[in-house]
């Protein structure tokens, strides 16, 4: 008789099962997204899943995705931000006014716009964190005030910057290195860089864990994980390689997602945000400065709204009074569909990006099918409702 005891937890199948169970929410969202794509692929007779359309889809979700990354932090801490749409419109108008009315260079205009966004964030943070006014009220007030401010600085006129560099932020693509090639070499190169960076990071993490004497995935499973993730990255990039390359806005989105995922999961500040949303009193007694944390959240949210505003205005190539209306609802819906709890304490940034892609896919697919606003609003509303219900139902089952 062999004396070896088989620890079930170490079997590859069990490891995969466990990881699936822990990340069930994320996986079910990805599956839902792919299902939506598949359905549209059939309904649009093959137009939906094409390099051209998917590239556009990513570009369409960039602005919402950037702001939704901030909404995750705001909602995880138990707040809400209703002012995003107005702030997006206002900061976009600031950029346009700087460029057109004051003839500033793009660099100066962007710096001024970002400073304005920073001040808006501090304004929100001051009232919410240090004056104790609920975020709902503070941002509802800002929603009205900044809508008015847009009218104030644009004089109710549409302002078109028509500046090539500014337009590129929302509409432009990374240039090709070799124009003769029939695919986008620069994007392909960037994709390879991403894959290599990912592999190096994974190897480093694994080494560190081994140094601490922790169990790590078996070699074969680790290799499978590396290959699997590399294929996913390659697939996303190849969509853009086959069309016009990677848009600047999508690059910006990727940067925001990486930075904010690190902030939310790897910094003390990020942990504080989740702790405050999960149990405010326990967080307070653990020595967490709740006011400072809330202030930081809204400063970051102000900056992200501003970046989204720049992308949005550049894509439209115009600052108009109605810019960004209902934009906050798209961001909040994206975060919620992506698993952010309306009660705080839970939510991830990659989830919100998937949520943003779901919303953009519905818009895009239904437009391709020539459905009107009536059907689009109806379906988007229902999807939000069903997604949250599905979440509540599966949670109850699990508990």
């Amino acid at each position, binding site marked *: 008789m062999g004396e070896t005891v088989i620890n079930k937890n170490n079997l590859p199948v069990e490891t995969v099962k466990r990881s699936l169970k822990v990340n069930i929410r994320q996986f079910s969202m990805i599956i839902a997204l792919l299902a939506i794509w598949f359905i549209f692929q059939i309904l649009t007779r093959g137009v939906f899943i094409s390099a051209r359309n998917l590239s556009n889809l990513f570009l369409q979700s960039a602005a919402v995705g950037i702001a939704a990354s901030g909404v995750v932090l705001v909602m995880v801490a138990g707040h809400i931000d209703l002012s995003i749409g107005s702030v997006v419109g206002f900061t976009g108008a600031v950029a346009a006014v700087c460029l057109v009315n004051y003839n500033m260079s793009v660099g100066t205009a962007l710096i001024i716009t970002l400073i304005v966004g920073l001040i808006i964030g501090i304004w929100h943070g001051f009232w919410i964190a240090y004056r104790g006014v609920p975020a709902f009220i503070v941002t509802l007030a800002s929603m009205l005030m900044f809508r008015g401010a847009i009218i104030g600085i644009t004089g109710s006129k549409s302002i078109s910057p028509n500046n090539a560099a500014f337009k590129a932020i929302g509409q432009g693509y990374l240039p090709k290195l070799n124009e003769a090639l029939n695919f986008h070499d620069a994007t392909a190169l960037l994709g390879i860089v991403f894959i290599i960076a990912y592999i190096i990071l994974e190897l480093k993490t694994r080494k560190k864990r081994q140094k*601490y004497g922790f169990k790590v995935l078996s070699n074969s499973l680790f290799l499978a994980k590396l290959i699997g993730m590399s294929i996913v990255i390659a697939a996303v990039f190849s969509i853009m390689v086959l069309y016009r390359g990677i848009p600047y806005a999508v690059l910006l989105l990727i940067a925001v997602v990486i930075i904010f995922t690190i902030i939310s999961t790897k910094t003390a500040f990020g942990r504080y945000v989740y*702790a405050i949303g999960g149990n405010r009193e326990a967080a*307070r007694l653990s020595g967490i400065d709740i006011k400072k944390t809330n202030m930081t959240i809204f400063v970051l949210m102000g900056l992200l709204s501003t970046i989204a505003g720049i992308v949005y205005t550049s894509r439209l190539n115009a600052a108009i009074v109605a810019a960004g209306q209902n934009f906050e609802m798209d961001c909040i819906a994206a975060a919620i569909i992506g698993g952010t709890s309306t009660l705080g304490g839970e939510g991830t940034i990659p989830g919100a990006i998937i949520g943003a892609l779901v919303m953009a896919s519905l818009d895009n697919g239904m437009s391709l099918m020539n459905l009107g606003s009536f059907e689009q609003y109806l379906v988007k509303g229902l999807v939000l409702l069903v997604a949250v219900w599905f979440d509540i139902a599966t949670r109850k089952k699990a508990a």
Partner: protein
Amino acid sequence: MSEYILEMNNITKEFPGVKALSNVNFKVKKGEIHALVGENGAGKSTLMKVLSGIYPAGTYDGEIVFKGQVQRMSGIKDSERIGIAIIYQELALVKQMSIAENIFLGNEIIKKGFIDYDETYKRTAEILKEVHLDLNPATKVLNLGVGQQQLVEIAKAISKNADLLILDEPSAALTERETENLLEILRTLKAKGVTCIYISHKLNEIFEISDTITVLRDGKTVGTIPTSEMNEDKLIAMMVGREMSERFPRKEHTPKEVVLEVKNWTVHNPEIPEKEIIKNVSFEVRKGEILGIAGLMGAGRTELVMSLFGAYGTGVKGEIYLNGKKLNIKKPKDAIKAGIAYVSEDRKKYGLVLGQDIKTNTSLASLDRLVNNGIVNDNEIVRQTNKYVEDLNIKTPSIEQKANNLSGGNQQKVVLSKWLMTEPKVLILDEPTRGIDVGAKYEIYNIMNDLVDQGVCIIMISSELPEVLGMSDRILIMHEGEINGEIDYKEATQEKVMYYATGGK
């Protein structure tokens, strides 16, 4: 008809795993003020919840006879209908509504489908006179002090023409003058024939007001005796008279130098800023000792330690010295940095983020020290958490388990791990074994002994007298915000502690 207005016969009430009441007999004569006394957790509140229908008929065994009839109540509405009114420790008033609206809440005076405010205000004014409250009936409750709110509660009970009034710790939040006023009102009510059950920890009040005393202990009736035949010593002996068993790993500690010194500590209640909740308290704790703080509910024990930790109170005055160095603690972070840790009395409310896993919870108070270049060192968190899981014997499949899914004892150990990770010099434990089973309790006692051996000094608040006597090296006893006595464990008895806790000098 018998002379008893209320007879509760052989009442037994069980909660999962605990027998809160076993065969309790409780009889109240018509028109008397009957005091119900006992230690924390003796079953007084449970008995009153059975009586008022909060625990409906069928969830307990035994019978309730009220005014000569067996009553089977299925809710508080039923008990009110037959003339029983209960006034809780926690006030049950809607603060945003007026006094009149509160008094007639659920019993609104209706005329033609609308509330008749003229009549409501008129009747309210009459009732307020009875409780010596000279206030406009339209005043909102949130503008009243706690004492006045208590009187509004009593007015509400009177408005229902209750024959039996139950007061659960009515004077806990009252000043001396307010308490006197309350007792005066009770005497007036008694003269009108209202019967009253008075629950209190304050023995002087009990001797002043009551006609009869019933003592409960560990969910059983110890006895019912006329107040005239009772004295304080006899009452205390009845309250605590249980045998001490070998439930505590007593270990001889040798206290060394003073670590924490508190001088002239005064704290005001943040909700009633004029009320001093801690009055000029001074004490010290030595390296390698367990200092027990005993006292009855409302004595200010939690408020004292939470204010030392920077988490409670306004108008805090006084000085704290740690190893001879004066501390300036404004918020919990200052206390943690100085080396003070506080395990709260309610782990679910104040200790854990229940939706997060073990390792996230254990690291929450030490993240500052676990950061390299701004990035949290997760590997270090996992290593340390694993160590505590092993040292404290936390039973869990993995440190990725959510705190929600752990038993009470294991949750308490996770909270302990969180604070041990901050490497405290002074560890404050507030009710460290509340609501956990005997085995886990014993483990926590052993952990406390180990920590003391490692040179940590421990301040332990406990409402369980056996725990205080069994674990402390020295016991401070608090009464009404003051330290009313200090006893070495070798001289301590339950009677002595109870004597000081009830205000004996």
